[in-house]
């Protein structure tokens, strides 16, 4: 069984209270948005962090992706607000 590492940043991290975690990989055809929906369904801090997917951005294996993109063979998914730069 393959896994997917999740990383959270900024207010996503604060709402959930975790830097990251590892979940069962939902398969290569699942999209980033599918993972977001799955996490939102947990409720609590997750529900709060992921309630408005349009406020979220993502990176798969350290490259920016769209929420509609499939996970493919990606192993590290980061979810965060739009970056504000340095």
């Amino acid at each position, binding site marked *: 069984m393959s896994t997917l590492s999740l990383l959270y940043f*900024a207010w996503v*991290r604060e709402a959930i209270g975790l830097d990251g975690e590892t979940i069962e990989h939902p398969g290569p055809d699942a999209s980033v948005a599918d993972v977001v929906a799955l996490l939102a369904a947990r409720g609590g801090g997750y529900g709060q962090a992921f309630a408005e997917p349009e406020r979220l951005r993502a990176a798969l294996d*350290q490259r920016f992706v769209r929420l509609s993109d499939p996970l493919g063979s990606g192993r590290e998914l980061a979810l965060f*607000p739009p*970056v504000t*730069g*340095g």
Partner: protein
Amino acid sequence: MRRIAVSEADFDAAAEIAALEALGGGAVASFTGIVRGDDGLETFRLDHYPAMTEMQVGRLMDDALARWPLLGVVVLHRVGVMRPGDRIVFVGTASSHRGAALESCAFLIDWLKTSAPFWKKESFADGSARWVEACAADDAALARWT
């Protein structure tokens, strides 16, 4: 010369510029970003995605080296907690051509300021704190390079 450092430690911009000057190119451009104390800002925290920053900055440097005839390129970025007046970012470039040095410096800082995986949280003297929202003007600056 190709150097990237993302660290909680302060850096010495003068030493970086001196090293770039010593490369013999004739043209050294630099940009230093400093934390501003606007609106009673007291401290400032930069959250970041370390592995992604280093990989993306490395790829961006490769782009810059392919695009301009550069002898040296340095990107230093602080993360963690900073205060107004602290240096936060340094970009320095060296070339035989002043246009190449100036343009590649602007290219790198535009990317860092708009697209690097950093998130700012500001804390004010009145005890309030907020995550900074992304800025549309920055996207316009980046569009110059594409």
